[in-house]
């Protein structure tokens, strides 16, 4: 199953429409999308608007691959589950989010080898065609780095000077 998610907030019409049209063109029946307040109503794939966190996680666990906006919630959840993830960044100028931080996130996580990226809807079909060869970056620990945990523990344990 390909699990498509636009994240917890805001619609993402460009991505949902492109995935739906790709599924129609390729005759794919193994796509499920969580689309939130997206205006575009998919015609060729299964979809729902909202998913509770627990259900979300079980969707991720049972999916073979994720297609998502470039939000950290989606990326971290995929990495924690050891699933490959293809992201498409939201854009600030299209009011899909506040600014272009998702474009920067996508670039950086692509460089780190953690995600696949389609930078816009025109790139998405070709990237979706290659999904079967997108491999996972490897399951990450559910916790922050030892360094960050250690710095926080030390700060919490300090007495006020």
């Amino acid at each position: 199953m390909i699990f498509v998610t636009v994240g917890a907030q805001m619609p993402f019409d460009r991505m949902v429409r492109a995935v739906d049209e790709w599924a129609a063109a390729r005759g794919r029946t193994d796509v499920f999308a969580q689309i939130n307040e997206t205006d575009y109503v998919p015609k060729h794939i299964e979809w729902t608007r909202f998913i509770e966190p627990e259900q979300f996680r079980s969707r991720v666990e049972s999916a073979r691959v994720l297609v998502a906006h470039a939000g950290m919630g989606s990326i971290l959840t995929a990495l924690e589950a050891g699933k490959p993830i293809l992201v498409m960044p939201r854009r600030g100028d299209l009011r899909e989010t506040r600014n272009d931080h998702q474009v920067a996130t996508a670039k950086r996580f692509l460089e780190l080898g953690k995600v696949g990226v389609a930078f816009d809807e025109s790139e998405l079909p070709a990237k979706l065609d290659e999904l079967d060869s997108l491999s996972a970056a490897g399951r990450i620990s559910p916790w922050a780095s030892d360094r960050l945990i250690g710095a926080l523990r030390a700060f919490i344990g300090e007495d006020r000077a």
Partner: protein
Amino acid sequence: MTKEPSIRGHESSPRRILAIASGGGHWVQLLRLRPAFEGHRVAYVTVRESYRADIGDERFYVINDATRWDKVGLVRMALKLLWIMLRERPRVIVSTGAAPGYFAIRFGKLLGARTVWIDSIANVEEISMTGSIVGKHADLWLTQWAHLARPEGPRHEGAVL
């Protein structure tokens, strides 16, 4: 945690911690910090009731979500949070963003708490707008990207990955 008696006994004394984040990636990142809170009494504050399932039977509060364009929503958020903080009396505030963390850090200073702002890992190219406003008010101001650290803050002490 070490079982050996601590030389500096106060290091292991339980602290009241308020761990606060808005939804999506902010919340997922906050959850990844949980080992840092072990042995302390944590109250979690976020914006979705459904996130309660993520933290088991620990203390949990929900406030409304709001962006900086929603003044009425921000006031409601601030008042509810202030009520929670007066009730919980946290010694330490930890936030991964966004608007709820801003208010928690400002109120935390007034109430004598020590505060930590961890800028989201999504902010790859520049510190978040909220972070750049509230960071200097935090006792510990962290970025998750080494290249964004500055002598005057934020510091870099690892990441949630």
